[in-house]
């Protein structure tokens, strides 16, 4: 059921903040504003936040939806281990990153947005949430086989549609399975 995982929203908010920091920084640098070193910082901060926040974490319950092409980012972020898994770290990191953004107008909006994302991450951390990577599905550990399955199945699952299921005498090669007993033409 859908108990709120705050980290999902914090992630959207932080990603938006990263984009806003980036945009503000680009405007400051391209427009040759005064104090454009802060604008340059804003670009760097924006890029960093976007890279960190782009890969969505795995949800505790329910299906996790990946962002397009996020796999390589997932691997990168995962490699930092507890630093990226723990949301207290993220909350603190975002709070720290956003501060220099308050010094120029072009980065103020990004700064406040990131500050809000930091607060939401804090809420997530207090509730015990963590960032888990979404990795390609692997075979889960096999559960012990139940007693009822003693013989190997006659046909492989899943079953193809009925008209293809029977092996036809005139076209043995096209059949979906192999029978230990030879097939003869039957009465359909």
């Amino acid at each position, binding site marked *: 059921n859908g108990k709120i995982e705050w980290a999902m*929203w914090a992630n*959207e908010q932080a990603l938006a903040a990263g984009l806003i920091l980036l945009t503000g920084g680009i405007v400051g640098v391209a427009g040759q*504003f005064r104090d454009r070193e802060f604008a340059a910082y804003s670009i760097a901060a924006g890029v960093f936040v976007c890279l960190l926040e782009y890969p969505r974490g795995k949800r505790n319950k329910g299906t996790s939806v990946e962002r397009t092409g996020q796999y390589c980012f997932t691997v990168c972020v995962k490699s930092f281990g507890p630093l990226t898994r723990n949301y207290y770290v993220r909350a603190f990191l975002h709070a720290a990153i956003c501060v220099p953004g308050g010094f120029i107008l072009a980065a*103020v909006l990004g700064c*406040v947005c990131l500050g809000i994302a930091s607060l939401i991450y804090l809420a997530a951390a207090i509730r015990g949430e963590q960032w888990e990577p979404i990795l390609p599905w692997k075979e889960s550990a096999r559960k012990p086989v139940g007693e009822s399955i003693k013989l190997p199945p006659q*046909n492989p699952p*899943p079953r193809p549609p009925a008209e293809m299921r029977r092996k036809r005498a005139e076209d043995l090669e096209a059949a979906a399975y192999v029978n230990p007993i030879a097939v003869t033409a039957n009465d359909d």
Partner: protein
Amino acid sequence: MGNFAANEGLSVFVILVWLGINAYLFVQFYMNFLTERWFYTRVLLGDALSWARAPAACLNFNCMLILLPVCRNLLSFLRGSIQCCSRTAARQLDRNITFHKLVAYMIAFHTAVHIIAHLFNFEWFMGAQLYRNSSSLPFVLSQIGTGDNASYLNPIRTDQTNPTIVMFTTIAGLTGVVITLALILIITSSMEVIRRSYFEVFWYTHHLFIIFFIGLVFHGFGRIVRGQTATSLLENKPSQCKDQFESWGMNGTFCPKPEFAGNPPMTWKWVVGPMILYVCERLVRFYRSQQKVVITKVVMHPSKTLELQMKRKGFSMEVGQYVFMQCPCVSQLEWHPFTLTSAPEEDHFSVHIRIVGDWTQGLYEACGGDKNETQEAWKLPKYVLECRANIFYDPVPLTILRMAIDGPFGTASEDVFGYEVVMLVGAGIGVTPFASVLKSVWYKHIQENQNVFTKKIYFYWLCPETQAFEWFADLLQSLEGQMTEKGMVDFLSYNIYLTRWKETEAAHFRVHHEAENDPITGLKQKTLYGKPNWDNEFTTIGTKHPEKKVGVFLCGPTQLADVLEKQCLSHSEAGVKFIFNKENF
């Protein structure tokens, strides 16, 4: 093709008109600030002035529009009036949320342009104050009005400040930041991932729109965008006086100092109408929520589905419609939409609710969630008594769970009954409106005074897993039984496709595949695995019903819509015609 034009044409037209108005406003207001009155302002700001004012005009327009699509009661009223003229036009009003989102994206876009332009404006206003050289026109312009603080041009009045401070100390700046933050929070919490999984977060955060609109109205009160006054223009014409700025106002010159004033705030004129309409909308919803709704039956289906059968005085519905439900016991503020699963011919209306979020879980518990049988409403557990109201409802007084219903909404899907042969395709939860359709067709048949045009229904249900089957399987089973009794076994032909399965289930199927009833659903016709072979299906149906019009109705994902539409086109040759109806659900 005709269908496409009919269905899509009006939507495309509306979108084009809307985009056209946006473009027109943008260009018009861009050019409004290229006039003489703004000459000196542009000395300081250049084109950034126009780049800020043009999106501002578009923002006024779009903020006016954004409240309208969510006034569902108003729209329902409009739709009712239009429906007699044109069902297609009426159906456009169902795309309200889509339009609301489009307008929201446009607001976000114009906000971005507006803010970026203002970043330049602030920077250059500041620069004009910092470069303190009386041979610089920007500086001279910035010094105007220092005495009276009324006729100034540059809203940054001193060089002892910086743009950030100015922003937080002007009405325009402060409201701007607040409403932009509100907008960003609304957008991030409205992303599909958040909206579908945590509706409560989405719904509550969305109410920041109240702050947005209040801030928006006050945003222009500081009159920070200043142009030359009309009287000043008569005495100091920029084209003549601009080069004599070092001697403005001195004895013996023709050019006095120019004077400036800000435009009066305009935004309220755009948004006050929709704001009033929206307040009315909420009042209507409140009024409707006070009308007594009785839950006559509660059924817990094993597949985490809750069925509620209800009655309300004067309630009337048509197939395929939906209602919004509120349960004060669970939450005072939240209204959630649910498709009606009952037929209009029944004496009650019903919904089937899947338990997926906080609100549905709360509703489940309020209805006595631990039991899994049918409950008469008065047997509901004592611990939720505080949510109860006692009412007298014919013929017995009942203790009921208070519930409020808004609706029904949605265009009736009566088109289904206009076809002799019908293909209904429902994917997953998309089968819900078909419950209403199937029941209604059946009722129409057994009320023998009605001549039912529809003679044959082909029903396809695509489902990823078996668990959600139960209640719908019950319906199909009961219909199957009734049809057998009436000797109408051929009326309904259905196919259930499991598009995903688990290994343990596959083992079970293998053992039982010869049983006459399907092991999963107990239905006589077998559950099939994988996706349907649409080519085969369409060919078979086409062969069985030559010279007929077959209506194809879908409630499911757009990819499936594309597939079906193609199939309809390719199989509509001489004789049988497949007509794809995408818009009913």
